[in-house]
């Protein structure tokens, strides 16, 4: 039986918020992947975006501002069979959580990061987020944004995510499709999701985006996938970076870059940790039937036996 990933909790996002589209894309993606109720964990930070797990009918943790990635990695590494999805804001992931975003690129544990890119701090009333461009003044700012913007696609590619894409919250089918691929991809994926915030961002509105977005794979020659010994690996990488700068009249959405060469962290762990694949920590028994330890202290610490 197909599991329904939407629950009936009241959603308290503002009317017209792009977050609704993301929620729909995510839950339908999980459903279409035919995942079961216990196959998925959704982890968020704090922000409007951070409320998502409550609306998904799967195990969910709404953690701390900026810390969704470490929590998600903890879940993934102890129970690698779970599909672990991070739903975070642009402030959450690229400001207070930027250190973890960068580190996760290096680690590549196999989580899926959905970044709700509204260019503002929604839940704290509209301050500039790291994707807001320099000099832009959205309605709740006292003065034009004094910070330059981060290019999230480039940051994700350059720090090592092996699946990097962009979606638009009002292109739900397209976004759902990307999420499905990302969730099934063994390495860590990062999806920058253009998400209008009608309450605070009066610049990057739904209409503004609708006029601009186009799909990368409308160009039939677009091939973002790098495989082992791919002669075009470098070219694909550079092209993805170049594409990531396209912003203004035309904004590309779709998959920018997929790196199949690099093994995820979970693969790397298998080399060092006994039975990691068959009996990861979450599947282990740690005590005997009568509650006794099952670890032999002297044998395990053999190198410390001095007499």
């Amino acid at each position: 039986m197909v599991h329904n990933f939407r629950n009936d909790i009241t959603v308290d996002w503002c009317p017209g918020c792009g977050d609704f589209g993301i929620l729909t894309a995510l839950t339908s993606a999980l459903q279409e992947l035919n995942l079961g109720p216990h196959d998925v964990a959704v982890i968020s930070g704090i922000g409007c975006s951070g409320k998502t797990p409550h609306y998904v009918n799967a195990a969910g943790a709404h953690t701390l501002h900026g810390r969704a990635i470490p929590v998600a990695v903890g879940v993934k590494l102890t129970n690698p069979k779970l599909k672990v999805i991070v739903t975070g804001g642009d402030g959450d992931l690229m400001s207070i959580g930027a250190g973890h975003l960068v580190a996760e690129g290096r680690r590549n544990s196999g989580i899926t990061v959905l970044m709700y890119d509204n260019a503002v701090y929604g839940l704290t009333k509209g301050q500039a987020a790291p994707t807001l461009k320099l000099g832009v003044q959205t309605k709740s700012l006292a003065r034009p944004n004094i910070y330059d913007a981060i290019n999230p696609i480039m940051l994700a590619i350059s720090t090592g995510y092996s699946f990097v894409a962009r979606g638009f919250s009002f292109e739900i089918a397209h976004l759902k499709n990307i999420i499905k691929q990302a969730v099934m991809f063994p390495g860590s994926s990062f999806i920058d999701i253009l998400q209008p915030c009608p309450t605070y961002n009066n610049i990057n509105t739904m209409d503004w985006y609708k006029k601009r977005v186009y799909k990368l794979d409308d160009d039939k020659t677009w091939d973002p996938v790098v495989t082992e010994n791919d002669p075009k690996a470098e070219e694909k990488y550079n092209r993805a970076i170049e594409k990531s700068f396209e912003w203004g009249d035309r904004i590309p959405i779709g998959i920018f870059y997929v790196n199949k060469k690099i093994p995820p962290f979970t693969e790397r762990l298998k080399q060092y940790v006994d039975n990691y694949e068959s009996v990861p920590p979450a599947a282990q028994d740690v005590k005997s039937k009568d509650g006794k330890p099952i670890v032999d202290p002297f044998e395990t610490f053999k190198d410390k036996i001095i007499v």
Partner: protein
Amino acid sequence: MDFNILIGGPQGGGIDTAANLVGKAVATSGYGVLSVREYHSNIKGRHSYTHMRVMDKQPRSLKYPVNIFVALDPDTIFEHLDDVSEVSTVLYDKTTEDYDLQAARMIMRDTSAKIRRILTENGFETTIRGALGYMKKRGAKLLPIPFSDIATEAVPDGTPSRYYNTIGAAITLAIIGIDRKFADDAISYIFKGKQQVVEENVKVVDASYRFAEDSKVAGKTLPALPTPRKLLLTGNDASALGKLLGGLRFQTYYPITPASDESTTIEEHQNIKWIGKEAENLRKGGVVIVQTEDELSAINMAIGGALTGVRSATATSGPGFSLMAEGLSFAGMDEVPLVVTFYERGGPSTGLPTRNGQSDLLFALNAGHGEYPRIVFSSGTVDECIYDAAKALNYAAKYQMPVIHLIDKNLANTLDLISKVDLDRIKIETVELAKEGDDVKRYDLNTENGVSPYTTMGRNIFWMTGDEHDELGHVTEDSDIRDRMMEKRFKKLETADREIPLEEKAVLIGEKEADITFVTWGSQKGPILDVIEDLKEEGISANLLYLKMFSPFPTEFVKNVLSKASLVIDVESNYTAQAAQMIKLYTGIDIKNKILKYNGRHMTEDEILKSAKEILNKESLMVVLEDGS
């Protein structure tokens, strides 16, 4: 037999190897040995030393002045002028006598000024010669060692300085009277796999023993005693072992002194060896250890691990713990079974990063915004670390709350011999699991003891949020639910208080009635127990109120003991007498007499004894200990 020993030399100059050599040889010949390492926050060059004690029985404390003083470099002599007396033999390199203090640039400026003052005021020149003169004046016997000659004799084509540590250790063993064959065995053990190095060092040992005999300092060879199998463990190692025994399967860490050695030890032993019978037919695998990008990540990743039902922990020290405060508050709010092993070092801030301290107790008790229950307890000996580390995981699981296990740097870096790991003292306890199914009330309010049924990601659908939440784990701002959730969370602490046996919280060691009642926690336990014996010999009775748990606090017991005590002396390695503050807060009893030390060095038997007598004789209410280089 009772030898206190100090072996000093430059960081990176093989002090640890020397200490291991002595330790291994002593242990295999059946005697007891305990040691503590003191070192600078520096990789190469600055002064570092090991303070050891060798006895017939297993020592519990260290003592100054030392009996055998081994200086592998001139700085060691300058740094420890006052650590010798008529009981001491000073082993030093004869060729360094002209070395001037001014040349010793690796000695901290202020220390150098102090040494200069001592020597000058006592009429000695500020050279090694002068320093040795000073030591001699203090009664020490000087034993010049021709380090270079011994090395060259043994390994003619080697770099002599590479063997100084072996020479120092070997002569020490000879003086104690340890049979040479144990020294040779120790060499093979330490340099396992490096055949040439073993051979060379065996030759060095041989030459050193011969030198000791020729110089008539060698002791009578002690009989080898029968000895059971023993582990040589630091506090770090013991905690690692206890965690594995207690079921830990996920640990995260960011490197920091003196905590990361625990994680490294776990990593080195992550592929566990199982007890055949008990472990049969169980699902078994290795432990996952992750070096994270920082401590924010470490605590949150450990929380993530706990969410899948895995016994998870992280280990850190002061600066890292500060970064964990927010995560701790989340774990408290969301009832996450999480263990944080908190290695205390000298603070505040970066402080004395490689030195001892017990100045984080109040912080551990109050870290993280808002109010939530937590268990905070500490260990005092290497042996305790094993069982406590396992217990910490139980507490976390049973009471679904963060558990902070305090281990001071002194204990973390104490090398002790452990002959028995008593598995019967460890029972792995868990709590009721929620029924499998779709919607579980992870925060069920309908509980007697505050502990709601547990479940894990991958097993049930449930939610969590750091916001106040309803029973399902969804955000709520309802004021009644809020009150009931606060009450439920704190009820768990009452449950823990009721269920955790008193002996895991506080123990009165010794006679019920005594002239002096010491109060302490952490690594002063051993030295104080020895002081109690010393006092007994002098006709003074003393006992020890040894505190282990600070949250929940054993109020009644402590109040009971202290209100009956005649003279109470609080002994802590901090400035503000933090445990005494907690005692005052909980029991209302204000301990006036204190022995405190905050210079970062380990407390020794002799200085506690001296201060206790000062207090007993009413010469002082509070003594600040200043020993240690």
